[in-house]
């Protein structure tokens, strides 16, 4: 029973960490219509910033400032935000699939920089020994993970509340207006370029935050954590959960990560040992089937966008 609780805590930590990135993507795609296919790249920036700011000093590698966890989180958001400003200025003139291709390329570039800039990132060896703040406070894996889960919950809660607040504000309505018809929005005196950039930067900061939470939890960061599959997973979570709905984004993170991991558990239980080595392929098929089935049944996601004009007009 303790094992089960311990696993659920662990599962929630990982899925909610993904959830933070999904919230960021939701702001970009769900509310603003920006096709960001570079989630992994911005996550990587946040992750490495966390590792450099809070990690122990190393020979021949920059960083190791051993700063507090919270400083690492804020630093990660700032660094990925700055990265997003540059990327945004360069690419946000592009629309839809063009933006997707450009951001995808940038994410691959960032991963390759992480792989090659040894002085900053430790290269392929990665950076080890990144402190997990919960280990300084309590003993035992379950207590530590529970504490870390609380930290993640606080971060998710704050992000969620802030996003709910801003998407319901006039600024949030402007995002949707631009998503639906940016010419119409511009004719009302709004500046779509500027607002797109703002939404892009805010969303990327959340992706960086997600990366930072991940490395602190795992205690290690390497370029292999930020392959394009991560971007794909985050997108799947958003689409399954329901884009343009922050609750949907978080639910999607839990459900998709649940399907991803539970399918492996089920396969290890039901498939005979002799053919389990082929089970990997079955797991991939199972994940695909479940996701397709969900989208067929709920094409707008499990909880899609709520339609309303303004929080004042609704009542």
């Amino acid at each position, binding site marked *: *029973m303790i*094992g*089960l609780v*311990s*696993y*659920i805590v*662990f*599962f*929630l930590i*990982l899925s909610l960490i993904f959830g933070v990135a999904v919230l960021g993507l939701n702001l970009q795609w769900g509310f603003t219509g920006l096709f960001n296919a570079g989630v992994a790249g911005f996550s990587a920036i946040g992750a490495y910033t966390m590792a450099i700011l809070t990690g122990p000093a190393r020979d021949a590698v920059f960083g190791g400032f051993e700063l507090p966890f919270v400083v690492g989180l804020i630093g990660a958001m700032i660094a990925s935000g700055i990265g997003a400003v540059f990327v945004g200025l360069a690419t946000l003139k592009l629309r839809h699939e063009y933006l997707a291709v450009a951001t995808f390329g940038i994410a691959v570039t960032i991963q*390759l920089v992480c*792989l*090659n800039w*040894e002085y900053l990132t430790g*290269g*392929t*060896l*990665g950076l*080890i*020994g990144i402190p997990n703040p919960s280990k300084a406070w309590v003993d035992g*894996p379950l207590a*530590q993970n529970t504490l870390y889960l609380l930290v993640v919950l606080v971060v998710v809660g704050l992000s969620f509340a802030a996003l709910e607040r801003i998407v319901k504000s006039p600024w949030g309505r402007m995002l949707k207006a631009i998503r639906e018809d940016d010419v119409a929005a511009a004719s009302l005196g709004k500046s779509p370029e500027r607002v797109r950039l703002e939404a892009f930067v805010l969303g990327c900061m959340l992706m960086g935050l997600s990366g930072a939470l*991940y490395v602190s*939890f*795992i*205690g*290690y960061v*390497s*370029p*292999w*954590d930020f*392959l394009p*599959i991560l971007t794909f997973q985050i997108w799947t979570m958003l689409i399954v959960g329901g884009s343009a709905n922050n*609750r949907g984004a*978080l*639910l999607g993170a*839990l*459900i998709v990560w*649940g399907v*991803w*991991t*539970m399918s*492996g*558990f*089920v*396969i*290890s*239980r039901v498939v005979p*040992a*002799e053919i*389990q*080595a*082929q*089970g*990997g*392929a079955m*797991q*991939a098929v199972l994940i695909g089937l479940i996701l397709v089935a969900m989208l067929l049944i709920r094409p707008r996601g*499990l*909880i899609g966008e709520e339609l309303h004009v303004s929080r004042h007009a609704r009542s």
Partner: protein
Amino acid sequence: MHKFGLAALAAALMGIGSTALAADCPIKLGAILPVSGPMGQVGERIAETGLFAVEQFNEAGGVHGCQVEYVLRDTQGQSAVGVDAAKSLVDLDGVQALIGAVSSGVSLPVLTSVAVPSKVVQMSCCSSSESFTALAEEGKTDGYWFRTYATNRSQSAIGAKLTVDSGFKSTAVIYVNTDFGVGLANRFEQDIAKLGGSITSMVAYNESQQSYRAEVTKALEGNPDSLYLVAFPVDGATITREWLALGGTDNLIVNNSLRSDDYFQAVGSKFLQNLQGYDSAQPRLPSVDSFNEMFEARFDSPPNGPGLHSVYDAVTVVLLAMEASGDITGENIRDNIRLVTSPDGVEVHPGPEGIARAKELLAEGKTIRYVGATGALAFDANGDVQAPKMTWRLDGDKNVETGYLSTAEVAELIMMLDE
């Protein structure tokens, strides 16, 4: 809705999880390997060989009279998936030892976030990164980390020795930019300085490029009299062709992955008559031959491929350590691993008979020395092992052996270099 999702998930987990925790028999051994994804083909054979080792152990009566159940989970080559799989094996299946993973980028997160905090032994067949040794030296593995893959340490040492013994004074290094290549090249640089050689340049290359002209040009600076190349056959052949075409010396020293006919043919053997290399030697031991025979009988093909010998030994050593433990806990397994690979123990070999004999000896309270598919394993304080090495050169189309260093000689060489 959000809360409902959580509750449903918890209920689903409980339904499947609860049966797993109760029984003591069979004893479970967890394996986290990439049976799909980019490493899928390699991982699948490794996973099958791991199962083969478990089957043989069961044939000899299992652990404490219990059959061993091999619970395999796929990492998909992704760290988050691997970490979750490991945690699920530990918490829901109650395993006390994990075999895996293959790539270091997955093994290390599993080690730091699951194995060490949960006090579960993790033994990898294949992870080569030096970060594990660094982590162990810092005391952050608590001794729960082991690998049956002989570390890069010996490869750079023997490469440097071969270079200096061949009379080369200034060497250029071109290496693949992975944790394997970087670790090896950096060690080589230190080793060759100790042995009296010198390096003219260190050039990393990224895999799967059309041309490596820029890298080769850079490596040619300073007129090296030899080239040390750490590469894999396809890219290695491209680099070698460009190196020779641009006037580089044909005094080549290559790492073991280039001891391949694909490479010789792609470059042309006649251009490689001053090529030398080294490789992990199959130890000259009957235990290795008997493993090879048993493997061939089971799979109808010889055990050629990365990680097969080493995963067999990883599984067998862990199970022997379980057998030697009263209570099967991660801590006991960790402590008993050296008891079953002790240099002054009674020698036992792989296969059902060897394992049955090992179990008898353990029951009598004796220490044993498991000499397995990779030869005698001696884990150092960091959980690393060494392997015997051989050197070779190309003669016509054939690569011929030019030297052999036993495990003890390799260890001696490394000790000298590390001083």
